[in-house]
């Protein structure tokens, strides 16, 4: 039986209070906050976080497919899944593919993975959905959108959720769109869009799915379905006859926001955290049609809850100090002309050190056992001077402690002060990098740190990703 083997999730640490948006525009925004990607995050880096969470306790060699889903991939032309496969140290013969363009792309990828596993061409597919959508300032979307990611391993053995039924519909309905020339998503009058789009299409698809499976709404333990906003979500539950309090998965609108292609998958991850052996989960995701799944929870589910998931990501958060910071993070204004030269990069150097840069590979000296990491990649051991006598050690998943730090107020970082950190890994290596997702008031020598892939700069027009450290998010 094919199904979900593991799950993972990621929510960026920053929250923007709707009140702060209200203060800027003077129009009511309601209560709550939305999750905002840090200035060094995008759909790839958030996807990597969710994938890492999902892979905990699993041998990465077992993954033979990686599907990445987002309407906001970092490149318009260039695959994201292939970068992610390198970051995650997956096998070279992994089949990578991006699913894009639709809010349904997350479940499109899940369904494609299930089909591929069923067809036998792959055994385990890592599906990652991540989103970092840019809403127009002072729009309804600005109140609604949040950032986040979810990931699943789809496979056929040791599944925690068996997929009992899949049903999909397609629809040419235009409700949310963005052309090549649009910076922000557009929409039409919401009453029309909801009535003939989301409400009609999702309702029909879910009803068909449960009817065909000979179920009634009351038989569903948890109904996990996406919606454009809170009101539409409640309306849908009523239309289908679900008990909102007892049966319906919280869509997290007031704590995370609508996370686009990742929204349904993140809700599913949250429901798995609560799921019990034998539960029937209805999972539905809307966008240019609707994907529906009936999932049966197995006793395996208890064994895959060691990651951070939604819960721990929700509970660790920092308030974004103000709306101005948000404008900077998303680069939403025309700023003062930069007098500094543009950031330097070189694709050649980046390629030469790709393993060290993308998956933070360090080197363990076979002669003296010391682990080290430096750039460019060193061939002579700093400790015993043996030459070309190393084995590779992945440091990206290791924890470390802060040996020293400084807080620089004068770098071109968007989130000043820029925290320079000297990190001593538990493995014994030392690594100098930048600390992100931190409160400058709470930085102390000796504090525990974990590594996180971030965007360093856009030198020479491409995304220069590398590893930063952050205070452990537990």
């Amino acid at each position, binding site marked *: 039986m094919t199904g979900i083997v593991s799950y993972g999730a990621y929510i960026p640490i920053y929250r923007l209070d709707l009140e702060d948006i209200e203060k800027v525009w003077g129009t009511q925004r309601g209560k709550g906050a939305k999750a905002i990607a840090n200035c060094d995050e995008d759909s790839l880096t958030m996807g990597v976080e969710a994938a890492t969470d999902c892979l905990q306790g699993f041998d990465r060699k077992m993954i033979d497919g990686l599907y990445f889903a987002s309407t906001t991939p970092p490149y318009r032309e260039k695959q994201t899944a292939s970068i992610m496969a390198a970051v995650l140290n997956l096998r070279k013969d992994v089949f990578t593919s991006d699913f894009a363009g639709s809010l349904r792309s997350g479940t499109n990828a899940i369904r494609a993975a299930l089909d591929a596993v069923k067809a036998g061409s792959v055994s385990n597919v890592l599906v990652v959905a991540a989103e970092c959508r840019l809403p127009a300032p002072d729009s309804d979307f600005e109140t609604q959108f949040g950032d986040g990611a979810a990931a699943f391993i789809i496979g056929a053995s040791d599944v925690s959720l068996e997929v009992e039924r899949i049903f999909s519909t397609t629809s040419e309905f235009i409700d949310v769109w963005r052309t090549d020339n649009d910076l922000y998503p557009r929409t039409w009058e919401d009453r029309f869009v909801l009535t003939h789009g989301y409400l009609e299409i999702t309702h029909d698809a879910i009803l068909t799915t449960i009817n065909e499976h000979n179920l009634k709404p009351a038989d569903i333990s948890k109904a996990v379905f996406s919606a454009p906003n809170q009101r539409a979500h409640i309306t849908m539950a009523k239309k289908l006859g679900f008990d909102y309090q007892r049966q319906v998965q919280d869509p997290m609108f007031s704590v995370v926001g609508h996370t686009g292609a990742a929204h349904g998958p993140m809700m599913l991850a949250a429901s798995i955290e609560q799921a019990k052996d034998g539960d029937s989960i209805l999972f539905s995701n809307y966008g240019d049609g609707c994907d529906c799944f009936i999932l049966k929870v197995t006793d395996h589910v208890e064994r895959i809850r060691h990651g951070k998931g939604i819960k721990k990501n929700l509970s660790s958060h920092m308030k974004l100090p103000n709306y101005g910071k948000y404008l900077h993070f998303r680069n939403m204004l025309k700023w003062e002309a930069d*007098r*500094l*030269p543009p*950031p*330097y*990069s*070189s694709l050649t*150097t*980046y390629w030469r*050190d790709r393993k060290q*840069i993308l998956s933070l590979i360090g080197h363990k000296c076979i002669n003296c056992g010391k682990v*080290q*990491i*430096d*750039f*460019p990649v*060193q061939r002579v051991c*700093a*400790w015993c001077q043996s030459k070309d006598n190393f084995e590779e050690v992945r440091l990206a998943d290791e924890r470390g402690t802060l*040996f*020293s*730090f*400084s*807080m*620089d*107020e*004068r*770098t*071109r*970082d968007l989130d000043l*002060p*820029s925290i*320079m950190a*000297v990190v*001593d890994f538990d493995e*014994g*290596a*030392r*690594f*100098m990098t*930048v600390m992100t997702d931190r409160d400058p008031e709470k930085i102390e*020598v000796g504090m525990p740190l974990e590594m996180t892939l971030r965007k*360093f*700069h856009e*030198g020479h027009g491409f995304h*220069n*990703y*590398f590893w930063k450290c952050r205070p452990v998010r537990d």
Partner: protein
Amino acid sequence: MESIKDKVAIVGMGCSVFGELWDKSVDDLIIEATSEAFEDAGIGPKDIQAAYAGTVTGYTGAAISRALKLQYIPITRVENECGTGEDAIRNAAFALASKAYDLILVVGYEKLKDYGYGGLPIEITKMPVVHPVYETTNTAPGNYALAATRYFERYGLSREEGKRMLAKVSVKSHYNGARNPRAHLRRKVTIDQVINAPIIAWPLGLYDCCGVTDGAVAAVMCRTEDAKAFRDDYVTIKGLGNSAGPTQGAMMSNYDYTHWEETEHAARQAYEQAGIKNPRTELDMAEVHDCFSIAEVIAIESLGLCEKGRAKEDIDAGTFTQEGSLPINISGGLKSFGHPLGASGIRAVYEIYKQIQRKAEDPSRQLKNVRMGLAHSQGGQPGKFVCGVVIVGAP
């Protein structure tokens, strides 16, 4: 191996005004410094047989021949980041000792204020260590601040105690530099001013950081046996040290960030040549690399001028002030006199040269009985330095 001690002499020196010299080109600075040095040595440009250029910002050695219209003589450019100056002198000394030349001009020069923004020009600080992502956000104050954080941690100083110790260093440098007519930042500051100044890279504030300075310095050098022909009060080289670290401090977990390994190696070489057993008592003054206040504190310890971890006691006791037993950075140092990278090491020697000759500008700065002094500069960042040390003294 033979010691270089007393084999080579400095017979003339010159120093441009230091500062933000908007109206001066690098050629102007070179002409200013060399004109004074030529006059000081009683020679003209045509007497020079070879030149050594100390510069970081990418002008070739030909900047000297261009400015002075030197006619096709050999010029070597020396570049070791901020450790450049001493190394230009060191190479010139060896060329003289080998008798390849009889009279050499050494010029350190830097034009840093043509870039349109504060701090060191990114172009020059990034180019020697080109990497797309590693250490791309590092800055000089950020790097040295790592050492300050560790120094506080290691010696149990609270943030306030640590900041106060560093402030005293800057107060002293500004007090000295304020009275030095050619210095860049000529104003006295108080401890409170230093402590309350805006943070640049925590824990370092504005007054913990040196200026970004335009300037040039020149020296005319010959073998000691020829020195008398130029002047009676020449000084001789007593020792030369240079240490290029394997740049591994930042990657080895046993590096403590509270000592400068390269400085210790370079100083050892120079002390051995000079026959110095106890630098604290045998040296009469030192011009040490104080691009940041913490740099001076650790340099003092790594040069062996006080015991490790005891700099604070000496700072509190005033040991390194003008009246103290071992005045340090009587010029004002990089902090107040200014720091035109490649010129700074030669400028440090310039101060010792003038003090030995009892010609310190502004007589209130003249130290008593200086017979021997040490100049120290280092380029790079903690754990990854190149260090140069020059000890000069009366013959």
